[in-house]
């Protein structure tokens, strides 16, 4: 019990200390750039609990989710096909690495040019940017499925669909999951950047707009909201991964 309490408590020390310091250090601040934390907290409560969810938070989350789902399905499917076809793999691998290395935000001007500044553009930016980590990891995962397992399954005449969905994909899931983790972080980054560059709503737009209007507490509250959203997404995914890949950690004797 004490150990569990300590493990849960330990990560909380740093933020509690930091927030306390912030709170008292700027309590009487009159600087327009560094407003007191209490002012920011007020602004956060007014804006984000939950008045601006329909106008800004939900549109941001919606675009991000759609873009991410497109890339998840597309990149996993493409990764399986490429991973299973040696010829295709050799032909495409250098380009996957190249596209993965291009900062996705650099393509924003191009996406705005062809898709405009609507939802399609933002979804496309997220989908494009999050594709590469998932694709590269899926290819890797599919390639490293154990040859003995494949031989065994072939000897039992397992059909093609069963082989892909019930042998290869589960086998590759630890690697695919690592790609998903990277891509989730990218998705938040990209949706915010794309909303800052060209948008009429969304959290990214809100933050930039608040800055332009010198509503500095509102700007800070938006930044804090993004931080909290990021942590929530990460934590949520960790919980899913923990459950789904329990077998992987256990069979490789990895620490919990």
């Amino acid at each position, binding site marked *: 019990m004490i150990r569990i309490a300590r493990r849960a408590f330990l990560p909380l020390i740093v933020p509690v200390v930091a927030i306390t310091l912030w709170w008292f250090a700027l309590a009487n601040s009159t600087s327009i750039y560094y407003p007191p934390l209490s002012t920011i907290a007020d602004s956060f409560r007014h804006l984000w609990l939950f008045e601006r969810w329909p106008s800004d938070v939900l549109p941001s989350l919606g675009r991000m989710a759609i873009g991410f789902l497109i890339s998840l399905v597309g990149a996993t499917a493409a990764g399986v096909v490429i991973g299973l076809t040696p010829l295709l793999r050799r032909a495409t691998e250098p380009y996957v690495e190249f596209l993965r290395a291009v900062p996705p935000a650099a393509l924003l001007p191009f996406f705005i040019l062809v898709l405009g500044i609507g939802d399609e553009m933002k979804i496309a930016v997220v989908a494009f940017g999050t594709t590469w980590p998932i694709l590269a990891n899926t290819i890797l995962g599919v390639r490293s499925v154990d040859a003995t397992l494949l031989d*065994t399954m072939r000897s039992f005449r397992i059909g093609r669909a069963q082989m892909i969905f019930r042998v290869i994909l589960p086998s590759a899931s630890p690697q695919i999951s690592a790609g998903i983790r990277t891509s989730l972080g990218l998705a938040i980054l990209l949706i915010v950047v794309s909303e800052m560059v060209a948008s009429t709503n969304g959290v990214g737009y809100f933050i930039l707009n608040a800055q332009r209007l010198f509503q500095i507490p509102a700007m800070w509250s938006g930044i804090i909201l993004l931080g909290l959203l990021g942590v929530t997404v990460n934590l949520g995914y960790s919980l899913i991964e923990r459950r789904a890949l329990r077998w992987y950690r256990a*069979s490789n004797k990895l620490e919990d």
Partner: protein
Amino acid sequence: MLEIDGVGLTYGTGAASFTVLKDLSFTVGDGEFVSVVGPSGSGKTTLLRCLSGLLPVTTGAVRLQGTKVTGPPTSMALVFQDYSRSLMPWLTVRRNVEFPLKSSKPRRRDADAAVERAINAVGLTTAVNKYPWQLSGGMQQRVAIARALAYQPSVLVMDEPFASVDAQTRFELEDLLLSIRREFQMTVVFVTHDIDEAVYLSDRVVVMGGKPTTAKETLAIDLPDARQQDRTKDMPRFAHLRTELYRMLRESPSTASIATPVNSQ
């Protein structure tokens, strides 16, 4: 009857080609237990992949009940040495055992009964809801054996299945194999590099050797059918056969890795 008829296997072509097996022939009768022994690296696993239809032969043919094997036959099941790699760690014991039955075509009827019988036969009844990584090595290999049994093969092909478990477990599994072989009336092709194991289990032992590898000799094991670890291995005839097999192996080239038989058990 399983016929391995003049099987040859060559990787690559031209100057860079490498011949692993050459003109390798032997037959395994229905219900017979035949071990294939040979030094490490002599192509035992390659032969096994050929006769199970996983690897196309370059020359010759493998025939099962007179039909040429061109892909994995429905009446054959494999057990590999490395249970940790051939089982699926994300499935429970029961799901592992029933997976081939429920996923291969054509779908089998009475799958549940076959799964139940296989699990009982290898003594895994209390472990059905566990995961492979919760079990010892010997128990995991039992799962792999149960999976093969549930598939209801007429030929069971095993590639050094007991090489990764401790001696005590190995003896248990050897006796388990003999009993399920009788119960399920299967033909068994058993690849091993262990001389004692080959003599103890088999009706006949095929000795491989040479470069490229071919079937050098065959040794009939004329021990009584009911084998027992202590009694059978104490027989003068057992000692004689084991020495005979050792001599056959030593006479074939590239024997560096053949273990010398030790007379005390």
